[in-house]
């Protein structure tokens, strides 16, 4: 049994920790992690709940493959109602924390209520206790981790925590574990902060036993690892270049949103690309990239570890930033770079360090800065208000804003609202490049049409990780489709969304899907877990999870009107590149998508669909 069959319920208001049996009927229908935790969430929390109120809950959940030898089996997700979007939020992270929670004997933690004063949760196997965190409040995640290891005298303690951004209610605050792995999106860190919960420190020495058929499992995981090793993307591209392998590719196909989506190609892309990270710097002769790194159990190892140039203006007097730390992933490089027209690799790396250190999402942050820069160019925001001149391309403005947002100083709190609220406040809501209030990631829907539909319909707001049709439209995985074409994208998006829901619920990393399909995942699950995890059933499970999330959002007040894209993408054509002259063809794809999903024209699952999915 690859589940630990046990969940930890923490009532922060009452200060109690209790253990409950995992609902195995639900596990059979929703698998684990994202699916299963969302099931608990929708059963327990009213869709109308105010995200930052004590009535909202926050769930940390692992999957059945978390903490096993399945490649990438180290994932966990954080599920809540997101403060940025008001929709269901589910943010996924790697590193070592998720596996540690599983090793301690827990499948998930449900946190409810709000502590009267700052606390942290310490879990050592079966024992979970809340401790006073007043001495940790105001500290960064980088300070919290060693401090907790020292307090508990445990070198192996794994920690998930919020930085000052989460404390200060930055609406896209992240939960950071293992110094630079993040449950990054949708503001799950702000919810944690609203609960006065600073950190969850876990130590597990019980391990994961009870794999259903250990022999078959070892065989299945070995075969699946061979697939990853033999694949060009997961076997070579990602380990060598990380997700940054995409920077030049996406720029060339004209889908690189630039300067708040005014442009679709960035002239500075090569300066902030994977290749640039590998190249020796002029100043010190060293490359920005130090090495690649794996998360728990991962045989891909796409993680970037970078060291800053010690002479760079950002850190010349700050030796505390000279050590190696989590470097740029593609999405962060884009959001901090292209989205603002900034091509200073060291500045982006520094801003990324700050995002990790104080726990906020570089995508939403960078994209919000893009909107701020546009407002500055338009004269709506001034140097006096911002504290700095902030034209597109200003690295100084970017890094200054990162520091302000981290500390909650100056204009930081406004940037912390995210672009939707910020642009509305200053009278230009159309400049917010968001769906359901969440900022876009790094693919322009004018150049990759399927992504427009994926963003518009994503259950957690604009997101690339809910249906990554880039794989098909650009990389040809599993089949090549034309990125400029809208035909057939509805089915493609649905298929990606449903499959991804399974990856996210199993305990494995969605990046495996560059090489794996559910055909590779099914045998691993079948060998590990009781239940029916055949390919056919997995497709149903994925679709079920998607529709469950959709129903929650509908009940929370979202309608088909929210399955939309910003005006700019629908009316301002791409100026250059292969997509020149195109806008996002959402109007063509959306009705098809609803039909494909078995939803009515208002975007609500029909009774037949619900019945088919046993919802």
């Amino acid at each position: 049994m690859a589940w630990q069959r046990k969940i930890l319920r923490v009532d922060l208001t009452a200060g109690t920790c209790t253990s409950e049996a995992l609902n195995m009927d639900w596990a059979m229908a929703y698998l684990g992690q994202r699916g299963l935790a969302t099931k608990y969430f929708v059963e327990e929390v009213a869709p109308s709940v105010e995200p930052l109120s004590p009535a909202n809950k926050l769930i940390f959940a692992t999957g059945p493959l978390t903490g096993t030898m399945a490649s990438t089996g180290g994932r966990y997700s954080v599920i809540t109602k997101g403060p940025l979007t008001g929709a269901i939020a589910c943010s996924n992270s790697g590193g070592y924390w998720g596996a540690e929670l599983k090793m301690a004997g827990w499948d998930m933690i449900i946190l409810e209520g709000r502590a009267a004063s700052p606390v942290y949760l310490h879990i050592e196997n079966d024992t979970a206790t809340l401790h006073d965190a007043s001495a940790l409040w105001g500290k960064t995640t980088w300070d919290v981790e060693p401090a907790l290891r020292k307090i508990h005298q445990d070198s192996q303690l794994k920690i998930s925590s919020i930085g000052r951004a989460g404390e200060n209610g930055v609406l896209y605050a992240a939960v950071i574990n293992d110094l630079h792995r993040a449950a990054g999106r949708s503001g799950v860190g702000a919810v944690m902060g609203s609960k006065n919960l600073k950190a969850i420190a876990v130590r597990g020495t019980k391990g994961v036993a009870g794999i259903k058929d250990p022999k078959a499992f070892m065989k299945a995981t070995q075969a699946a690892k061979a697939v990853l090793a033999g694949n060009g993307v997961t076997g070579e591209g990602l380990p060598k270049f990380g997700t940054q392998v995409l920077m030049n590719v996406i720029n060339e196909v004209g889908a690189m949103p630039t300067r708040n989506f005014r442009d679709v190609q960035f002239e500075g892309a090569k300066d902030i690309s994977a290749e640039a990270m590998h190249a020796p710097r002029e100043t010190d002769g060293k490359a920005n990239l130090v090495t690649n790194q794996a998360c728990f159990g991962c045989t891909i190892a796409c993680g970037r570890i970078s060291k800053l140039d010690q002479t760079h203006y950002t850190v010349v007097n700050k030796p505390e930033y000279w050590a190696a730390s989590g470097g740029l992933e593609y999405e962060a490089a884009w959001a901090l770079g292209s989205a603002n027209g900034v091509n200073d690799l060291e500045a982006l790396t520094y801003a990324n360090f700050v995002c990790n250190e104080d726990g906020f999402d570089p995508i939403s942050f960078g994209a919000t800065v893009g909107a701020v820069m546009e407002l500055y160019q338009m004269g709506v925001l001034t140097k006096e208000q911002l504290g700095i001149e902030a034209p597109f391309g200003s690295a100084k403005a970017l890094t200054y804003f990162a520091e302000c947002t981290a500390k909650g100083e100056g204009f930081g709190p406004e940037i912390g609202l995210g672009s939707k609220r910020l642009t509305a406040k200053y009278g230009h809501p159309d400049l917010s490049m968001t769906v359901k209030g969440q900022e876009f990631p790094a693919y322009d829907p004018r150049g990759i049409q399927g992504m427009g539909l994926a963003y518009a319909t994503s259950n957690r707001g604009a997101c690339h990780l809910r249906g990554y049709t880039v794989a098909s439209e650009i990389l040809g995985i599993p089949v090549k489709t034309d990125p400029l074409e809208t035909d057939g994208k509805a089915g493609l998006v649905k298929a990606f969304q449903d499959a991804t829901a399974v990856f996210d619920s199993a305990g494995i990393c969605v990046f495996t899907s560059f090489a794996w399909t559910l055909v590779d995942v099914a045998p691993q699950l079948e060998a590990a877990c009781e239940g029916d995890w055949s390919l056919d059933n997995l497709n149903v499970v994925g679709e079920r999870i998607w529709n469950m999330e959709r129903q929650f959002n509908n009940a929370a007040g979202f309608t088909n009107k929210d399955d939309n894209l910003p005006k700019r993408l629908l009316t301002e054509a791409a100026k250059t590149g292969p997509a020149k002259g195109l806008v996002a063809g959402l109007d063509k794809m959306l009705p098809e998508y609803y039909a494909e999903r078995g939803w009515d024209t208002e975007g609500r699952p029909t009774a037949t669909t619900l019945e088919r999915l046993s919802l």
Partner: protein
Amino acid sequence: MRHLIIGNGPAGVVAAETLRAACPLDDIRLLGAEPEPPYSRMAIPYLLEGQIGESGTYLRKAPGHFEAQRIALQHGRATAIDTAARSVTLDDGSHLPYDRLLIACGSIPASPPIPGIHLPGVMTCWTMEDARRIAAAVKPGARVIQMGAGFIGCIIMEAIVARGASLTVVEMGERMVPRMMPPGASAMLRARTEARGVRVLTSTRITGIAATATGLRATTGSGETLDAEVIISATGVRPDIAWLAGSGIETAIGILVDHRLATNIDGVYAAGDCVESEEFGTGHRIVNAVQPDAVDQARIAAMNMAGRPAHLSGALQMNVLDTFGLVSVSFGQWQGVAGGARVEVDDPGAQRYLRLEFDGDLLVGASSVGHTEGVGVMRALIQSRIHLGPWKDRLLTDPTQLAAAYVARTQAA
């Protein structure tokens, strides 16, 4: 070449085996005063707990091991050494000649000058014979008083409790294991001991023991009386060297040796509990009566006896103790040194303690409770004098990174 080894405890056995490997052709003779095959004193607690039988304490278990190694075992007690004639006299009056001699005769329990200490029912816990007596006397329900809560005392407590006795421990010092653990750590051991139903009296001295109709009555310095069937005296040990008087071999508390484990007399070496040697790091002379040091010394002594120069950089204090499941260790200058930095984390709730002592950027001492992973590196960091460089400050912030510091400074260079 004839090698004679007096004493067949761990030091004697390891020396004999080291000699055999180094000098395949030499004569090696191992003399032991006790009737048992070479055995290990420190396995006695496990014998008393019933985890092993007597043969479980034997230092070597393979049948015919010593014959196969061509190590001659001889029963007998050495009573005198004629270093000029290179001859040892035994208790049966016979003589054994040698070319190289190793004295590895260990220690004997101290016998505190207390009225009644020789009454039947008062026993030490040192030899196999002692173990048999304790096993016969300590039955379920028996009341036992243990005098001394030093290292050895603390080790035997659990076995006494495991035999179903009700135990009172009386210690003169102000805390348990005063010469091994700092106060914070010692308090945890006491809490754990008391939680197992053992009564612990510190800063208390037994001043007299008398026989009663049912057993024994001990009186403490404050006049309190304690009744018991058995009193175990664990008030310390001292090198067993009285018999060396007049041999010309230099002794103080123990047999004095240099870094090669050589005594002042040519061809005579000593190792194990019976020696007094320079302490690592301080230069003070100490008797370091612990098993790992005994065998290290034996190995170095044997190398020198074999004509292969080798030396120890000094005796390092190192102890590991399991107090009813609570594991504690201490190494080197765990009390700290003048002018050195210290980091100490004390978590009585979780029963975890960690303390590191530095001199400049060297680790010179360490103690911990509740830690079992990688504790061995404490020894290496101290004894190999590994400069910690930037890791010293890191350890002051997060002392749990000790093993990482060791690996970083040695393997990851």
